Each structure stands twice: as C-alpha cells, then as structure tokens.
C-alpha cells in the first residue's frame, strides 16, 4: 500500500475521523473496521464499486447512521458511537453543525424558495439575524452563479441548478467539512460540469471535502487523496497520481480498468 492507513493516534488530530468503524444492517455487514482520518483542507475522494459501502460510510460521518462498532470523532471528540450516551449526543449536537452534506438527489425543500432554503438553518439553528443571513445567502448564490434565482422555487430549476443551491445551502452553515454523496450522479452530463466546477472552486479555496464520486477526472485532478473501497473495507489509499498510475492492489487495478477506453 502506498500510504500508511490512519492509526487511532492520527484520528485524534484529524478534523473528522472514523475509528475502527463497522456498520451492519440486520445480518448484513456493510462496513468492517474502517479507519479514516480527514485533515483540514484535504479533498478526499472515495471511489469503488457500487455497493462497497461508500455512501454508508459518508452517512456515518454525517451522523445519519449510527455505527455498529467503533466511533466517529470530530477534532478528537467522539460524536457518534453505538452507545449514544448523553455526552456523545451533546457533542454531536454542537459539533455536528460543522458537518455539511450534499446529497445525490439535492433534497431542497420544495415549499421554500431558493433564498428560504439557504437561510433556514442559519436563522433557526445558528440564530443569525435574518438580514445578515440574507446578505450571506446572496453572496453564496453569486458564488454558485445563481443570483437571479433567489426567489424561485426549486421545482423551476434544472438538476444542476438545484444541486448548486444545495451546495450554497450547506455552505451557509459555514461547515468545517463538506461531504458530497454522489452529488453529480443524478445529473445529465452537461449539467454535471457546472456542479463539478463549483466543487472544484471550493477545493481551491481550501474547503475540507469528502467526495463519494464516480467522476474519475475530478478525483484525479481535484482530489488530494484517493480512498478506494471494496466490500466494506478500505482496500487502498494514496495520492491521486500514484493511485491512478500505479495502483497497488489487484482489486483497484480491476476497478480502474473499466474506466479505460
């Protein structure tokens, strides 16, 4: 393997980390003993065959799933573990806000306008004064190139536009880490590009990102680290160039072969 797997010692200094994390749904074990530490300003791209557990791992980091074994740490503190004690729940509530997530199917709230979607959480959760939240939302919309859609309902937007709004909505909470769950998989090829460009710009600004993706070009050019998963485990990880040019494991080689023309 090209780089050392994260050790528990490393997870304590990480921004967010999975530590010996396993997850089962009933009898089906989906993740087994995952150690993954994400450090500030990293863009970690998770790739692997479908069904290998990438989404489930991301959902564990987003606190949408509870691990069956092991834990999730944020800045050293446990924010999720099988036994959700009061202390863990409290940590999850205060630190969980710093984790943002962008979903495959956008999940914008259809009864709210673009602006309302973006300011909802800052106003209600962070208690940001409304005027300030609106001003911030407007600058975020400018950043994702949708200033003119401020007062439109999501149903009137294309998939690519909806996803860019979803990114703006996540950014409005000023997350320390942004998780992308196959953010472009549901989009037509020409719409994928506009979303990938926004993601690329974010990476350029130093946003810490964990990206589950099938876009090998993005992983290679924008990622700072590749994590290759198969059958619920991290099989190989390393720098993008090394991973794509000289994959070490047979499984990674086999996986990459399907992207060759």
């Amino acid at each position, binding site marked *: 393997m090209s780089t050392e797997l994260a050790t528990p010692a490393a997870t304590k200094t990480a921004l967010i980390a999975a530590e010996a994390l396993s997850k089962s749904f009933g009898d089906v074990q989906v993740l087994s003993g995952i150690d993954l530490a994400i450090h500030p300003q990293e863009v970690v791209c998770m790739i692997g065959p479908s069904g290998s557990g990438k989404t489930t791992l991301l959902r564990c980091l*987003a606190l949408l799933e509870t691990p069956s074994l092991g834990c999730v740490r944020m800045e050293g503190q446990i924010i999720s573990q099988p036994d959700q004690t009061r202390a863990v729940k409290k940590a999850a509530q205060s630190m969980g806000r710093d984790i943002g*997530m962008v979903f495959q199917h956008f*999940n914008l709230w259809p009864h709210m306008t673009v602006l309302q979607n973006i300011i909802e*959480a800052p106003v209600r959760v962070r208690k940001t004064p409304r005027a300030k939240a609106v001003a911030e939302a407007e600058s975020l919309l400018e950043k994702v190139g949708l200033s003119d859609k401020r007062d439109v309902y999501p*149903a009137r937007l294309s998939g690519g536009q909806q996803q860019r709004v979803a990114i703006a909505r996540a950014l409005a909470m000023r997350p320390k880490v942004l998780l992308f769950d196959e953010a472009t998989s549901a989009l037509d090829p020409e719409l994928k590009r506009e979303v990938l460009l926004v993601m690329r710009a974010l990476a350029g600004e130093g946003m810490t990102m964990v990206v589950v993706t099938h876009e090998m070009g993005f992983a290679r050019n924008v990622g700072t680290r590749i994590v290759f998963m198969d059958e619920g485990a991290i099989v190989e990880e390393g720098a993008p160039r090394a991973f794509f040019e000289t994959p070490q494991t047979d499984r990674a080689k086999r996986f990459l072969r399907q992207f060759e023309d």
Partner: protein
Amino acid sequence: MGGYRFRWDVIPANLEFLLSGLQQTLYISSITLVLAMIGGMIIALLDMSRFLPFRMIGVAWGELIRNTPILVQLLWIYYVLPMALGININAWTALVIGLSVYSSAFIAEAYRAGIQAVPVGHREAARVLGMSSTQTLFRIVLPQAVRMTLPPLAANFVQLIKFSSLGAVISVGEITRRGMELSASIFRPLEVFTFIAIVYFVICWPLAMAIRAWERRLARR
C-alpha cells in the same frame, strides 16, 4: 309508472321547511369536520407515537371504527352510551359525536399519508443542517404534509354531508329527515326525495370534481 301526475309545486310550497333542513345538514357537516380534524390529529399522533401502548390504542381505535358500520356506531352512541355513562345525549349531539369519531379515523389516515409522502431526504437534509426534530417537523414536514392532506379533508367533507343523512334515523332535523316528515304529511315521496337527491348531488358533485382537479395538480408537482 304510467299515469302518475307529478306535482312539483309541492317543492316551492315547502321550500323553506326543506332548506332549513339543508342548513342543519351543512352546519352538522362543518362542525363535524372540525372535530374530526382534531380527533384525527390525536389518532395520528397515537399511531406514530414511539410509545407502544399509545400506538396500540391508536391502531385498535382505527380498526374498530373502520370495520363497523357507521349506522351501528350512531345507534350505539345514541342508545348505549347514555345508559353506560348514565348521562343524557340528545340526537343531535349523538350524530355529531358519531360522525366525528367515524371521520377522525379516516382523517388520521390522511394525515399519516401526508407525512409519509414527504421524502426522507428532506428530513435528513434538515438534520445534517443541525435542525432539531421539532424544527424539522414544523418547518419542513408539516407544511408539505398539509398540502397533501387538504384534498382528502375536502373529500371527507363530502362524505360527511352524505353521512349526516343518517341523522334521519335518530330524528335529527337535517334535510333527509325534513323530507321524510314532509312526504309523510303530504304523501308525495317521489317529488320530495327526488328533490333531496338533487340537492345532495348539486352540492357534492362540484366539490368532488374540484377535489379531483386539485389532486391532479398536486400529483404533477
């Protein structure tokens, strides 16, 4: 039916009497709708409770109401309940209670369907953004669920207008009862009941059409 001579003039001659019955019909249906909306909320909350005994009460209640005839329920409330509780319940109150209880079971179902129609992802998005479950319920789930619930509520109102005619059996003076009384005194059942059927139809049919159009519009979103 050859040779029968229609006497439609009996209708205008007794219009005031019949329309006072219609007024009662609409009054009873409206009050009942409001009560059933509240009752439905309670049953839906019981159904969706995290506490098993509450859930069982909610489910049992719904099953009981949906699987006995409404007329039997009405008769039971009118004749049995007062004896069991040792109180007096007049026919009007019995009708309103009976229809409310009956409708509440169906309205609870509509609420639940409305809430379940909100995609899980919308809730997950709220949760990741740090919103509490109460905030998520009131800001994200209910505003969407309510819109889904309005057509079934209107459909329930149409049901109530029709079912309130059962009040005639326990002599509540709604329009069907008024018709029975009138036809008994002037021996013109054909004109009277035809007129009453038309009145029900003229009220219920446009409502039903509007609801269908409304549902189609919701489905398209």
